[in-house]
């Protein structure tokens, strides 16, 4: 029992230590950098004070900013980045199309509509209500997109086209809901939030984002071999012993949950689900045993970086994080496309 467990862990452990260190460094950077930068010592002191009451003397206002705003915001950024990148990996494996990601397949748009519907119509209460609405919207839009793709012949190009139609429909529905039901103040807030925004993030959001990303990661890690087996299509996966339906449901469920949680917290952030998995395929190869953890880590680090950039880019103003990811993501994606082409 112990020997095989050890065999599983041995090759993994070196990399996971390295990954944890990179993530810790990124988190530390995310907490200390910003409009008012804090020294690392100060950050560590505040963390020690709050985690085990170390009792270092620090400026209470700075400590408050650091602990109540910066840290939850950075943690949520990390969870969102990991969740969105994982969603991209999963959808690309299942759909066997390099373009699949929650943004393009309309999942994010549906989640946005659900969250906005809950907000403007006053259904449910607070964060949980919004996340539930986002989940319902995400699941509904994904189901619609899949049905439309089936009706159109069922290929993966059809799925992407159906996803584009779905995104347009749900984005229009969102705008319609806003114009119809929201007052000017609400409308401005929602529009800003839809572009992707981490400014409002507090500790309660962390308790949704981190378990969602962590849970999604665990599900993906359990199914890495199944995702590999999808490389030659579903019937090839079935002939390799994969329970295709069950795996699809588990993976799509995990993706929808992660996307819904992230969209309800920070709005829809594009490009992470598309660019990060491609960049990681380039670095660690197409096998999911490495691709899944690498993408989760890179997504987390990337979004922390984007959040820092969004805070320091224009002094005195926060650029929506969705704008930053697209500004970096679009050229990055172009680069990947060109380099991939040359390799083939």
């Amino acid at each position, binding site marked *: *029992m112990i020997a*095989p*467990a050890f*065999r*599983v862990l041995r090759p993994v452990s070196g990399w996971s230590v390295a990954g944890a260190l990179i993530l810790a460094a990124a988190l530390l950077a995310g907490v200390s950098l910003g409009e008012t930068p804090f020294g690392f010592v100060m950050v560590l002191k505040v963390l020690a004070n709050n985690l085990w009451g170390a009792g270092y003397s620090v400026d209470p206002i700075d400590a408050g900013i650091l602990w109540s705003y910066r840290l939850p915001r950075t943690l949520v950024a990390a969870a969102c980045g990991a969740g969105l990148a994982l969603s991209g990996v999963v959808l690309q494996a299942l759909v*066997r199309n*390099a373009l699949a990601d929650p943004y393009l397949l309309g999942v994010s748009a549906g989640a946005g509509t659900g969250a906005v519907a809950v907000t403007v119509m006053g259904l449910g209460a607070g964060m949980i209500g919004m996340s539930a609405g986002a989940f319902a919207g995400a699941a509904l839009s994904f189901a619609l997109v899949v049905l439309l793709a089936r009706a159109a012949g069922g290929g993966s190009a059809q799925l992407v086209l159906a996803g584009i139609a779905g995104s347009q429909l749900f984005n229009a529905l969102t705008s319609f809901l806003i114009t119809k039901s929201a007052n000017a103040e609400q409308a401005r807030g929602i529009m800003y939030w839809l572009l992707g925004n981490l400014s409002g993030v507090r500790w309660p959001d962390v308790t949704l984002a981190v378990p969602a990303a962590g849970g999604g990661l665990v599900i993906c890690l*359990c199914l890495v*071999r199944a995702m*590999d*087996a999808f*490389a*030659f*299509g579903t*019937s*090839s996966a*079935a*002939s*390799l*012993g*994969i*329970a*295709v339906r069950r795996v699809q449901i588990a993976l799509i469920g995990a993706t929808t949950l992660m996307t819904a949680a992230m969209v309800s917290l920070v709005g829809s952030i594009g490009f992470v689900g598309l660019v990060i998995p491609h960049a990681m*395929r380039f670095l660690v*190869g*197409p*096998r999911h045993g490495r691709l899944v953890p690498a993408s989760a880590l890179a997504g987390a680090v990337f979004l922390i970086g984007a959040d820092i950039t969004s805070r320091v880019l224009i002094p005195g103003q926060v650029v929506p994080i969705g704008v930053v990811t697209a500004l970096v993501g679009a050229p990055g994606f172009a680069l990947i496309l060109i380099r991939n082409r040359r*390799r*083939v």
Partner: protein
Amino acid sequence: MLQAHDIGWSAGGRRIVDGVTLDILPGETFGVVGPNGSGKSSLLRLLSGLLPCAEGHVSLDGQRLTHLSRRDIAQRIAFVEQMADTSEALSVRDAVELGRTPWLSALKPFGADDTAIVSEALAAVEMTRMQDRRWATLSGGERQRVHIARALAQRPQLLMLDEPTNHLDIHHQLTLLRLISRLPVTVVMALHDLNQAMACDRLGVMDAGRLVACGPPGEVLTPERLAAVFRVHATSLRDPADNALLFRFHCLEDC
């Protein structure tokens, strides 16, 4: 070992496979022949459980396929599809390693024995030298050989091959058929080359979804049947080297 009881499947309002009853014996090489669209691939998919039977049922060693898990089936039956492609930048070795999937679990990760099985499968189809090549850079025949290596790495008791000699040059066609005949496994394969089909232990002839004949090749491939099912006129010749029977085909219109 594998029994089909009156199985049928329809699609698009047409009977694609119609009332096929078949008993595959342990260790035999069973060939399925028939014109394009006669339902060979569909029959193989039904027999391997990849398609659920609309009518009838298939049993493997006495157990119905529908009662077995995909993993159980995959440990016993390997299937090489007619056309399976990927856009992932997998290497040849990666693709063959997929064959070990049904044997791996959280407690039994990919180990040295799996590596050895994969290397052996690569050697069997003469792809060892190309094991690091990317999928996209392979020729059609090389891809076909990798698929076969993947099926071999699955270490099945029953190998199902849908037109395995497709895309292969004559050397690799002959080596593949020799390899298959020497493997200690049961083989069910769809074939188009009737001369190659003559080397099977038994043949099934499909025509418009029905199994119209089943038995030893010499009894099944009669001139009348070749004319009725394949719409060709066949003359047979004897190879002076080993006295084996060969077919030569002509268009019916020319006779």
